[in-house]
C-alpha cells in the first residue's frame, strides 16, 4: 500500500516538473515597454524616431515594427485587409538612446504639408521564434522642418568659405597687400595672341561643350572676355565656335564688350562667333576640320570638356598652335597636360578671370579661396586623426566623435 502511494506521488511530482519545464520553453518574450514615436527633428517630414525599452538581449532576438495604415491606404486596399503594415525589423537595442529611425513612411504622410497621424507598434521576437504582444506608440505626425539638419555641415562650410572670400575682398579694398603667385598659363595668353597676330593667323577659343548652366562655361566665357580684349588690342582675328545657342549669345556679348573695352568697337565681327551643333562629336568634327584647314596660331580650350578634349588638343598640336587649356573636369586634365603647352588645373582655371582682371577685389577673392583651402586642410587633418584613433578603439569616445564628425560633414 505504501509503495503504491509513493509511486503515485513520484509520478505526480515528475509530471508537474515536466509540465513546468514545457511551460518555460513556450514562454512568450516580454512585450516592449515605453514605446514612444517622435517626429525626426530637422528633416523634410519623411522620418519618425521610435524608442522603446528593451529587455536583455538574451531574451529576445529582434524587434518587429508595424505602423497603422493611412486613410488613403485603407481606401485603396481590398476590403478586410490589415490595418497594420509591417515597416521594419530592427535590432532589439535599436530603440535605446535616440531611437530607431523609420524613413519608409507612406507618400501621404511623408508629404511636407501632411497631417496624417500614424501609430507604430513594436513586438519582440524571442530566441525560439515566439512573438510577444505588440505595444502601441503614441500618434505622431511627420512634420517638415524649415531647415534640413543633415545639410548643417555644408551650410557651415559654405559660410566659412564665403566668409573668408568676402573678408579678403574687404581687406584688399582696405589696401592690404594681395600677392598671387604667377600662373604661367595666363601669362602666356598675351604671348599666344601676339604670335597669332604676327603670323596673320586666327585665334581659336573653344568654350567647352556645356551650356551656361555649368559654372565652367561661365568661367570660360569670362576668360574669353580677357582673351578677346587682347585680341582686339592686337587686331587679331578671334573665332569662337560654340556648342550651345545660349553660349553663342553670351560669347557675342562678351567679345563685343571686350572690343568696346579695348576702344576698337569697329573690329568686332559677330560672324566669327558661331553656333555649330549640340552634338558632341559633330561639334568636334567641325572644330577639328576648321583647325586643319585654317591652322590657327593659338588655341584656347576653356570650359567643360569630355572625350573631345584630346581630339581637339591633338589637332591643335598637329597644326603647331600654342595651346592653353583650362578645365575643372579632373578626368580630362591629363589629356590637356599631355597635349597642350599650358594647362590651368581646376581651381587655377576658375581663378583665371580674377587673375587676368588684376582688380584688387577679384584678387582678394582668390586669397579668400586660399583661406578656404586652409580650412579644408584642417578639417581633413582632424578627420584623419579622429578616424585613426577610432580604428584603434572602435567602442571608445573617439569612435563616437569620428562618427559625429562624419555625420556633421554629411558622410
Amino acid at each position, binding site marked *: 500500500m505504501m509503495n503504491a502511494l509513493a509511486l503515485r506521488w513520484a509520478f505526480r511530482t515528475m509530471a508537474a516538473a515536466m509540465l513546468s519545464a514545457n511551460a518555460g520553453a513556450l514562454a512568450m518574450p516580454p512585450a516592449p515597454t515605453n514605446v514612444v514615436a517622435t517626429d525626426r527633428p530637422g528633416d*523634410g*517630414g519623411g522620418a519618425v524616431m521610435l524608442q522603446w525599452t528593451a529587455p536583455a538581449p538574451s531574451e529576445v532576438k529582434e524587434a518587429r515594427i508595424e505602423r497603422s495604415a493611412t486613410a488613403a491606404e485603407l481606401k485603396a486596399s481590398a476590403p478586410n485587409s490589415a490595418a497594420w503594415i509591417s515597416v521594419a525589423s530592427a535590432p532589439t537595442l535599436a530603440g535605446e538612446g535616440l531611437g530607431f529611425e523609420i524613413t519608409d513612411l507612406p507618400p501621404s504622410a511623408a508629404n*511636407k504639408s501632411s497631417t496624417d497621424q500614424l501609430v507604430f507598434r513594436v513586438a519582440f521576437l524571442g530566441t525560439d521564434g515566439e512573438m510577444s504582444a505588440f505595444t502601441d506608440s503614441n500618434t505622431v505626425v511627420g512634420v517638415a*522642418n*524649415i*531647415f*534640413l539638419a543633415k*545639410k548643417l555641415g*555644408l551650410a557651415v562650410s*559654405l559660410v566659412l568659405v*564665403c566668409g573668408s*572670400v*568676402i573678408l579678403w575682398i574687404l581687406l584688399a579694398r582696405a589696401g592690404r597687400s594681395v600677392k598671387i603667385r604667377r600662373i604661367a598659363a595666363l601669362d602666356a595668353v598675351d604671348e599666344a595672341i601676339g604670335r597669332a597676330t604676327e603670323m596673320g593667323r586666327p585665334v581659336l577659343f573653344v568654350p567647352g561643350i556645356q551650356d551656361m*548652366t555649368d*559654372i565652367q562655361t*561661365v*568661367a570660360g*566665357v*569670362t576668360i574669353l*572676355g580677357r582673351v578677346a580684349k587682347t585680341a582686339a588690342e592686337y587686331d587679331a582675328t578671334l573665332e569662337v565656335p560654340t556648342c*550651345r*545657342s*545660349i553660349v*553663342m549669345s*553670351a560669347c557675342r*556679348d*562678351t567679345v*563685343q*564688350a571686350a572690343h*568696346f*573695352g579695348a576702344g576698337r568697337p569697329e573690329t568686332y565681327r559677330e*560672324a566669327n562667333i*558661331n*553656333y555649330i551643333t549640340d*552634338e*558632341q*562629336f559633330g561639334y568636334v*568634327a567641325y572644330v577639328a*576640320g576648321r583647325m586643319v584647314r585654317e591652322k590657327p596660331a593659338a588655341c584656347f580650350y576653356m570650359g567643360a570638356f569630355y*572625350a573631345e578634349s*584630346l*581630339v581637339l588638343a*591633338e589637332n591643335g598640336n598637329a597644326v603647331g598652335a600654342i595651346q592653353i587649356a583650362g578645365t*575643372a573636369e*579632373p578626368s580630362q586634365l591629363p589629356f590637356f597636360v*599631355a*597635349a597642350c603647352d599650358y594647362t590651368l*588645373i*581646376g*581651381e587655377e*582655371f*576658375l*581663378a583665371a578671370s*580674377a587673375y587676368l*582682371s588684376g582688380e584688387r577685389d*577679384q584678387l582678394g*577673392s582668390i586669397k*579668400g*579661396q586660399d583661406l*578656404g583651402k586652409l580650412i579644408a586642410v584642417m578639417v581633413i587633418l582632424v578627420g584623419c586623426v579622429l578616424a585613426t584613433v577610432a580604428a584603434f578603439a572602435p567602442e571608445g569616445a573617439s569612435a563616437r566623435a569620428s562618427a559625429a564628425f562624419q555625420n556633421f560633414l554629411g558622410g
Partner: protein
Amino acid sequence: MLRRTIPMLILAASGILLVVAYFSPFTTSWSETVLGWFNVLAAVAFVLGAGNLLAVNLELVSARRAGWAYALITLLSFAAMFVFGLFKIGVVPNPDHPNVYFAGDYESSQSAFGWVYEYIFSPLTSTMFALLAFYVASAAFRAFRAKNIEAILLLSTAFIVLIAQTAGGMFLTGWIPEDSMFAFLRFDWMKVGITEYIQTAGMRAITIGIALGIAATSLRLILGLDKSYLSKN
C-alpha cells in the same frame, strides 16, 4: 546702364535665393523649377542658333568660299532632318491611335528621322570617337618621353598601370605569393596602390580645389565683382 544693372540684379537675387533654398525642404525643388525656365529659354535660343547655322552656311555657299561643298551638305542634311522630324515621315502608327498619323513616334528606327539617326549619324559619331584611340597613342608617345626626373616617374607609373591591366602583369609577377612579404612587387598590387591611394588622393585634392573655386567664382558673379560676361552697349 540698365542692360548691365538688371542682369546683375537678376543674377544676384536668383543666386542668393537658390543657395538659401537648397537648405530647406520647402524650397529644395526651386532649382529644378529654375532649370525648367532655363530649358524654355534654351529652346527659344535654339531658334537663334539654327538661324545662325543657316546664315553662315548659306553665305559660304552663295559666295563659293573654300569648303562651300561641306556647307551645302550641312544645309541639305539640316533641311532633310527638319522635314523628316516635323512631318514624321515613315513613322509607324501608334497602336493606341492607329488612325492618327501624327501620333506615331518619330524617333523609332522605322521612321525616316530614326533611320538616319540610327544608321548614318550614330556610325559617324562612333567613328569620331574611335579616332580617340590614335590620339591617345600619339599623346602618350609625347608625354612619356623620359626627358627629366618627373617624366621618368610618369613613364614608370604609366608602365606599371598599363602592364597590370594586361595578362603580362600576371605573367611576370603573378608567381609572387599574395601572402608573402614581397607581394607589394606584384604588378596588380602596385596598380591598386597607385590608383586607389596616390591617384585618389591627388584627384580629391584637385576636386576640393575645384569646389572652392566654384564657390569663389559664384560669389564673384553674385556680388557683381566679375562683370566681364556682360555686354557694354
